[in-house]
């Protein structure tokens, strides 16, 4: 067993969660690093987030804000991504600030960061330096384009990662520019891959196999999400382009409904449409025939969907065990009976943002709950953490603040 088990002191929290006793230091900002660390916190890890004094994580300055009024403590993006963490403000550009960060990391089993790759090594907090002293430490670094390579120092963002990862070229239409997925989807995906990598490394570390430097490029995560474009090129030389229309989408009375099926599901469709005779129709008898007559098939489906509401289409197709869907909005989903039955949304109270309903957890284990807690105020835990982990007396804090360290 590794020394990480020495972290297993904080067992007071109940009920037991999978990562109870794991301490994580997050040097994260925006989406990818914070999402990875948020999921660690939700599973019981103690996450200490180090933020810049006065400004904090830049996500605090991105909306949505209540009534669109910017406020460091009321950013929806920040509140969502940082639930259950402790916030410590440290100026990493000062020697004292860096020293304090180093001391806090000595209490941790995991560091999660998503600075550009050269930043932490420049500050003397690079993975190699940290792990030379703490060989069991897991350091997880997420970057836009990779830890090495000609783009390592490039400024990245969601648009750029979607572009480099091959996704943008395939989204959109024949008459439109390429398209990225909504919001920050690529960064969330990279944060999820980083979570898997981190937990794998934690497991290995607990078996005495040493820590790891886990690196994830957001562009690589997006490339892994392409269902077939990369292997299609490798196998055939074909480069798929943007398709002229959205193959599975149809106009319903109140929005859009969709279907996406593989050939084994085809026989269920005619019954779902109330057209069992289509099963015996030569035009649709085989995969090849259906492809040859796909416009006619789309017309039949489209006419059926057009006179129904999107939710009715979804439930009717699914009642026939056919993979149909509806284009649900966030408003629709707040009312979803499925999400209600699963307890997906959780109410969390925050002293500045009030009580809001947040998306909760992606999975359940034996019906156990997760830790759903509010995001910290900027620097809310600075004094407590510095006292506990760095032996800094509260009476010394004004001096540190005056020196610009905290």
């Amino acid at each position, binding site marked *: 067993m590794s020394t990480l088990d020495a972290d297993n002191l904080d067992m007071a929290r109940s009920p037991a969660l*999978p990562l109870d006793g794991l301490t994580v230091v997050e040097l994260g900002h925006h989406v990818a690093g914070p999402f990875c660390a948020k999921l660690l916190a939700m599973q019981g890890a103690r996450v200490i987030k180090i933020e810049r004094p006065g400004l904090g994580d830049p996500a605090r300055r991105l*909306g*949505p804000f209540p009534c669109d009024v910017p406020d460091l403590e009321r950013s*929806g993006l920040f509140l*969502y991504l940082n639930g259950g963490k402790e916030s410590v403000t440290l100026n990493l550009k000062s020697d004292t600030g860096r020293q304090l960060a180093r001391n806090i990391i000595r209490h941790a089993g995991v560091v999660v960061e998503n600075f550009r790759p050269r930043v932490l090594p420049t500050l003397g907090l690079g993975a190699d330096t940290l792990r030379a002293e703490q*060989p069991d430490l897991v350091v997880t670094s997420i970057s836009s384009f990779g830890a090495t*390579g000609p783009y390592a120092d490039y*400024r990245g963002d969601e*648009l*750029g990662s*979607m*572009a*480099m990862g091959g996704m943008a070229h*395939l*989204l*959109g239409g024949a008459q*439109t*520019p390429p*398209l990225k997925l*909504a*919001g920050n989807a690529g960064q969330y*995906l990279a944060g999820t*891959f*980083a979570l*898997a990598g981190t937990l*794998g490394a934690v*497991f290995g570390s*607990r078996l*005495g196999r*040493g820590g*790891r430097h886990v690196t*994830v490029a957001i562009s*690589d995560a997006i490339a892994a999400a392409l269902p*077939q474009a990369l*292997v*299609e*090129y*490798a*196998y*055939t030389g074909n480069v798929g382009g943007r398709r002229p*229309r959205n193959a599975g989408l149809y106009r319903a009375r109140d929005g859009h409904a*969709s279907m*996406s099926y*593989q050939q*084994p599901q085809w026989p269920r469709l005619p019954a779902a449409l109330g057209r069992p005779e289509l099963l015996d129709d030569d035009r649709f008898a085989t995969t090849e025939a259906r492809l040859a007559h796909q416009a006619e098939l789309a017309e039949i489906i489209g006419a059926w969907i057009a006179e129904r509401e999107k939710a009715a289409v979804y439930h009717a197709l*699914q009642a026939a*065990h*056919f993979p149909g*869907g*509806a284009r649900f909005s966030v408003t629709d*989903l707040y009312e979803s*009976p*499925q999400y209600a*039955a699963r307890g*997906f949304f959780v109410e969390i109270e925050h002293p500045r*943002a009030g009580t809001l309903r*947040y*998306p909760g957890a992606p*999975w*359940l284990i034996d019906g156990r709950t997760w830790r759903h807690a509010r995001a910290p105020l900027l620097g809310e835990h600075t004094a407590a953490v510095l006292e506990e982990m760095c032996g800094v007396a509260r009476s010394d804090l004004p001096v540190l603040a005056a020196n610009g360290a905290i």
Partner: protein
Amino acid sequence: MIGASQLPLEGIRVLDLGMYFAGPLCGALLGDMGAEVIKVESPRRPDPLRLQARGLFPDGDPGTEPWNRSGMINERNRNKLGLSLDLSVSDGRNLFLRLVALSDVVLENFSTGVLDRLGIGYDVLAAVNPRIILASIASQGLTGPEREYVSFGPVLEEISGLASLTGFPDVDPLLYTSGLAFPDPLGGAMGASAILSTLVERLSTGRGAHIDLSQRQAASMVIGEFFLDYAMNSRLPLPQGNQHTAYVPSGYYRCLGSDEWVAITVHDDGAWQQLCAVIERPDLAAEPRYATAAGRADARNIIDAELERWTAGRDAETVTACLQAHGIASAPVLTAAGMSSHPNYVARDYWEEVEQLASGRHFYRGEPVRYDDRPVESRLSAPNLGQHTADILQDLLGVTEAELERLTACGVIGTEPRGAALG
């Protein structure tokens, strides 16, 4: 580094019942981390991607064993052994349960209810091996009124809310593609995370668990801030194309060549001034209405047109290098072909050339998770259907040659799809 040559999951055995995308990707991630992953497929009903009549084959040629030449299968099943076993008959089920007794993880993404109907639900597995972790990567999770609804990635994109926010505000949604099964790879990575945190917990509890994962919920999590916008402001968030509320301009701009584009994002007012200098437009730099993001947002179309006038005569790589040299976020929009030769992939040894038994040598994408910045190695290429059946059953369960012959004759095991036509 001491111990670093031993992969984190060495010694962990995973029975991967996954099919299509999410389940197999989850298993591959665990295999990449060193687990022994056994892809279990029924010869009667193998992974359906093996049976696609219009599948993706090397040079378009299905060959004599098309079920072993599927690009989609081979891309997401590396670092796995192949075992064929018909779980719907008692011989197959019994052998499977004997393997469960020797394994750590079972993962599946069948429709909800299938596992129970096969008689290998969690209670049965846990009775055989209380340490077993069963991960059910389900469309909707195992509970709730929609638990038995069936979905592929594109449908999950719709019902999770992701599709409602992806797209152009001023173009008919029927005229563009808004997703490529994103909830599948997300679900696979979430599934691997769930399994790994349960493995960590098992070190102290000694007990297994049943993971009930909802791919739909996972996909809704990636639009969390849009939910909060509605919760805060009671307004319906709409798709924003490639625009950003705080960064203006931003988008994909046309470059020299056919269907060539470059991503550009101006993160702040300083970057705007830099951009104007690079594109030699002091008039834009001096325009007071454009000095702030809010002002530029009001003139977004004009600014986009001016910027595209500059990019349109240049190639994407040149634009990228030029803007990045001035600290402005930019990247080329790459196709698969562009990615295959792009220096940022090549320099990081991203592409791996692997020989698959029935498909020959091809390049495959790298894994996004790297340890100590070394690319993941394919210790094993994707298996043919049931490729390692005899070895696994003999070595792990002591099944005799005579018994293997009987099982083959009964169709419980086999290396060819039995009675399943290409669909």
